[in-house]
């Protein structure tokens, strides 16, 4: 049994019992632990040390007054002022915050006893068994009065400190030890000698309010200064009245434990109030800063999305526009522009798009982790919208380059055909000039018979000449036709010229027919034919025709793309050259015929007449023959030049192919490695992240190879090289693979970072993480890094979820799906799987915690004021709150009151109704 009171820690709190001995006095002991004093010892009369009595009187009076001042009263003499019981009842009301029965009015002794009894009954109702009688208080018994006040202090100021199931005294001691442990020279072991030098008091103050004193300047050697310093500061700044006397504490060998405990308990209450407010404020700050950061990420997402969509909107019409200006230069310029788009404009936008996607996922992960509602972007800026717009862009882009190259090819061919057309027309017109006049002439009417026959023969020769020209006219018409089909921009002129030639040709044919019938008619009259020139005429006509053809062939233009083609042309030319010997003998034969005729005329003294069978002069034949002989070596040179050009083209092809055959497999290999890293994490996530980042660096370093390849590709395009059979890779394939490689890596890094973030936030181990990864990988049969609903369902069952094969199971599963795939993509990513599997098991109510924190800051009011917000929170967060809080509208509202309850639930997307 304890001496003064006895504590037991029952399930319903603490009960205090007091035992009294026969003569009704309360003993005070000189030494030892008075709380555990054996019962016999405290029976002794007048053991209360006068010094201790004086100390208790001073301290308890101060303590009572520190509470009574709240109702604007005080006591001066502790054994007298409580005698009538009135102030005692008042004191109890103030410290318990409860109403006591109405006191009896009247000054009679029995009134006083009744009032003191009401106070004692109230104390007893708090589970404290008192062994003091009302009469002793009314009689002004000091020892009894002090004993009663101590009981009150113990019950109302110290008992609720009990930490970790300890007794009140031990609880208060533990609190002192914890708070002073970092301070040198302080070692709190009891409530008397440990406080003697004052450092313990100073340490307690400094620990909570470091601004109030400089602890390092204090020394053990100056206890009076220390004690007075602590008492002064506590009175001035902490609103704790002086309850102790510094000299008395310092001078007594062992101060009274009760007075020190009483005083220290006032410190405890003063500090715990501020501490609670600080905790509440820091809790609110944490919640608010998460919301602020999230809002910032949301607006950043919106900004990036608008940017990107605007850029796509700008670029798309340009890519979709397939209008041509029909010029080679214009089309080349467009190709250059497209090249710039592929190389400089698109890649940064692609990474922007990837960033947008990863930012979005990171934000959603953060929101989920902090139990906030998910983020829905503004209409039209959803990830799906971005992806769709991007697809649209790529669709528009697809085939754009192909189209440009086709267009280039078409324009080049047009250019070639146009020139060929001109050339053929020139030759034809040169031939046809004057023919119509000739055919129209009726010169033969007065001719002799012989002359007429000659004329007929001449006409027959013309007819064969005409037939020989038929091919060319057909070619001219065919070229004109192709120019029409290909959309030649000078088609009107071509058509006019072609039409003129065709019309003329028709006219020639008709006239020829008419003339022939006219001559045939006259033939009956013509009998004699001069055969002198006949042979010449025959030979000269065909030879001249051959010469015309040869001249044409020798300047014919070629349009080729391969070495084989040029070799073919050279071969054909060599074959042509081989026939030149025969042509030379034919030429000599023809000249000899003319010479012979001349010789005969000369010999017969005849005037040389013109050859009636032909208009082809031997001079003409000679000059044409000479021309052919000049053209042959020129042709040799032209073909040789073309051969060199084709060889160079082949070199460019090889150059591109060799590089592409290195770059292509490198990208494939990198891609494969990245895929491996994607599926399997070896080592810790941080090691994995480092590995990926090393890869990223190697990609940046590899970039010059891609650029070099681009340079070769440009060379190839500038030389109009369209095919390359030395490599399976085209620039476009390399570009796409390279971009994909980079995009995938960026995404990988972001995912790993998210996982690390999740790991830290959820506090799960690497081992657990690896187990989740393994489970996910097991069901991800397609290696697409996401599960379809069927795979996900199997995965959940494997993870221990009871999802049955019935309607209830379907309902459960659909609910989970809606939870992990809020955007309804139809798939579950590893991130959302991880998030789902690591959801906290205890459904802690964030909203209520936040409301509780605000309630603490507002001193238990249902609203909070601007002044309170500004005082308790950092300035920016206070402003942030005031901008979003609605006015409080309850019946007990005051001006400028804010509604923190609605605000708190709105932060989590909820509302109290």
């Amino acid at each position, binding site marked *: 049994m304890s001496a003064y009171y006895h504590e037991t820690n029952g399930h319903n709190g603490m009960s205090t019992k007091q035992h009294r001995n026969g003569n009704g006095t309360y003993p005070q002991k000189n030494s030892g632990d008075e709380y555990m004093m054996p019962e016999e010892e405290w029976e002794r009369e007048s053991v209360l040390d006068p010094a201790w009595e004086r100390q208790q009187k001073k301290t308890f009076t101060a303590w009572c007054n520190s509470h009574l001042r709240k109702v604007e009263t005080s006591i001066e003499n502790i054994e007298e002022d409580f005698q009538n019981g009135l102030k005692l009842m008042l004191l109890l009301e103030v410290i318990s915050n409860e109403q006591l029965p109405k006191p009896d009015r009247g000054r009679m002794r029995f009134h006083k006893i009744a009032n003191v009894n009401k106070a004692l009954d109230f104390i007893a109702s708090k589970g404290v068994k008192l062994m003091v009688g009302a009469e002793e208080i009314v009689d002004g018994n000091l020892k009894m009065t002090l004993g009663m006040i101590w009981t009150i202090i113990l019950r109302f100021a110290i008992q609720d400190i009990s930490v970790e199931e300890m007794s009140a005294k031990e609880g208060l001691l533990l609190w002192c030890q914890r708070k002073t442990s970092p301070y040198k020279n302080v070692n709190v072991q009891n409530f008397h000698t440990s406080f003697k030098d004052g450092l313990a008091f100073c340490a307690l103050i400094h620990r909570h309010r470091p601004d109030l004193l400089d602890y390092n300047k204090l020394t053990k050697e100056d206890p009076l200064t220390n004690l007075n310093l602590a008492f002064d500061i506590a009175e001035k700044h902490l609103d704790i009245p002086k309850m102790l006397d510094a000299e008395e504490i310092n001078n007594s060998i062992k101060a009274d434990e009760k007075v020190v405990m009483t005083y220290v308990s006032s410190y405890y209450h003063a500090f715990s109030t501020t501490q609670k407010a600080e905790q509440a404020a820091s809790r609110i700050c944490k919640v608010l800063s998460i919301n602020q950061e999230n809002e910032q990420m949301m607006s950043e997402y919106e900004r990036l999305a608008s940017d990107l969509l605007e850029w796509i909107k700008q670029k798309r019409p340009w890519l979709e526009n397939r209008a041509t200006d029909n010029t080679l230069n214009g089309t080349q310029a467009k190709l250059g522009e497209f090249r710039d788009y592929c190389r400089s404009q698109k890649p940064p936008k692609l990474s922007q798009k990837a960033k947008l996607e990863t930012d979005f996922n990171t934000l959603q992960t953060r929101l989920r982790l902090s139990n906030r*509602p998910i983020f829905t972007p503004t209409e039209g800026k959803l990830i799906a919208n971005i992806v769709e717009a991007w697809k649209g862009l790529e669709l528009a882009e697809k085939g754009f380059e192909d189209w440009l190259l086709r267009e280039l090819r078409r324009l080049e061919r047009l250019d070639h055909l146009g020139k060929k057309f001109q050339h053929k027309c020139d030759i034809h017109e040169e031939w046809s000039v004057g023919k119509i006049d000739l055919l129209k002439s009726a010169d033969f009417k007065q001719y002799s018979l012989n002359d007429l026959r000659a004329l007929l023969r001449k006409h027959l020769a013309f007819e064969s000449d005409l037939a020989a020209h038929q091919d060319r006219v057909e070619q001219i018409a065919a070229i004109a036709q192709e120019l029409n089909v290909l959309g030649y921009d000078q088609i009107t002129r071509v058509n006019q010229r072609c039409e003129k030639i065709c019309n003329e040709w028709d006219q020639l044919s008709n006239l020829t027919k008419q003339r022939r019938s006219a001559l045939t008619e006259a033939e009956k009259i013509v009998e004699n034919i001069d055969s002198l020139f006949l042979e010449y005429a025959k030979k000269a006509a065909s030879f001249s025709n051959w010469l015309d053809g040869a001249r044409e062939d020798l300047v014919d233009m070629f349009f080729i793309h391969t070495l084989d083609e040029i070799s073919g042309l050279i071969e054909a030319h060599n074959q042509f050259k081989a026939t030149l010997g025969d042509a030379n003998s034919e030429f000599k034969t023809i000249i000899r015929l003319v010479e012979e005729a001349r010789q005969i005329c000369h010999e017969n003294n005849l005037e040389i007449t013109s050859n009636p069978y032909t208009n082809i002069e031997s001079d003409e034949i000679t000059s044409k023959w000479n021309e052919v002989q000049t053209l042959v070596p020129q042709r040799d040179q032209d073909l040789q030049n073309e051969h060199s050009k084709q060889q160079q083209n082949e070199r460019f092809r090889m150059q591109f192919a060799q590089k592409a055959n290195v770059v292509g497999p490198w990208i494939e290999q990198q891609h*494969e490695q990245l895929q491996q890293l994607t599926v399997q994490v070896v080592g810790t996530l941080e090691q994995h992240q480092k590995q990926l980042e090393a890869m990223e660096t190697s990609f940046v370093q590899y970039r010059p190879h891609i650029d070099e390849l681009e340079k070769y590709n440009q060379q190839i395009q500038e030389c109009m090289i369209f095919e390359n059979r030395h490599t399976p890779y085209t620039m476009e394939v390399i570009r796409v693979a390279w971009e994909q490689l980079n995009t995938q890596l960026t995404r990988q890094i972001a995912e790993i970072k998210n996982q690390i973030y999740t790991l830290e936030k959820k506090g799960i181990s690497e081992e657990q993480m690896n187990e989740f990864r393994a*489970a996910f990988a097991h069901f991800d049969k397609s290696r697409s890094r996401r599960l379809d609903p069927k795979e996900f369902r199997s995965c959940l069952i494997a993870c221990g979820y009871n999802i049955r094969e019935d309607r209830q199971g379907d309902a459960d599963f659909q609910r989970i799906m809606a939870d992990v795939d809020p955007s309804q993509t139809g798939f579950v990513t590893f991130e959302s799987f991880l998030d789902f599997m690591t959801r906290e098991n205890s459904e802690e109510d964030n909203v209520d915690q936040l409301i509780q924190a605000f309630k603490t800051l507002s001193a238990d009011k249902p609203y909070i004021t601007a002044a309170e917000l500004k005082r308790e929170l950092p300035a920016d967060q206070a402003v942030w709150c005031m901008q979003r809080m609605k006015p409080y509208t309850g019946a007990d509202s005051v001006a400028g009151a804010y509604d923190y309850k609605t605000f708190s639930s709105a932060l989590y997307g909820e509302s109290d109704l």
Partner: protein
Amino acid sequence: MDYTLFPTIPVFLERSSLDHSWGFRLQGGIDYRLPLSIKKVVSNSPAHNKLFPGDGIASIDGQDTSSMKHEDAENILRNSLRLQLVLRRGQLTTIRPSKPAVKFGSGPATPISSALNNTTTANNYRRF
């Protein structure tokens, strides 16, 4: 999501004044892509023993909620003295595993096909 899988329950609530709380906390709405639903219920309130945490709200006064924003629903609920609700019991109840998970070792990964395989033309490259 197929909502017909949940039993629907009509509930009628009444209060004497707008200052009287209904006594429940609302969450969700189309803007949060979460069905409108009951988060918690206060004891001895009009909602007590009629609404339960996890209940989805299918309709309010005959109005379908599937395209309602949180704020829209909140305004209707705040400014009514009588409410005719149709609930989907247990729509939002959290599902938890009932037995330990199967362990999966991280076995050898299946071979990955190359990004550039068979990509001789520009248009048939593999998307991933």
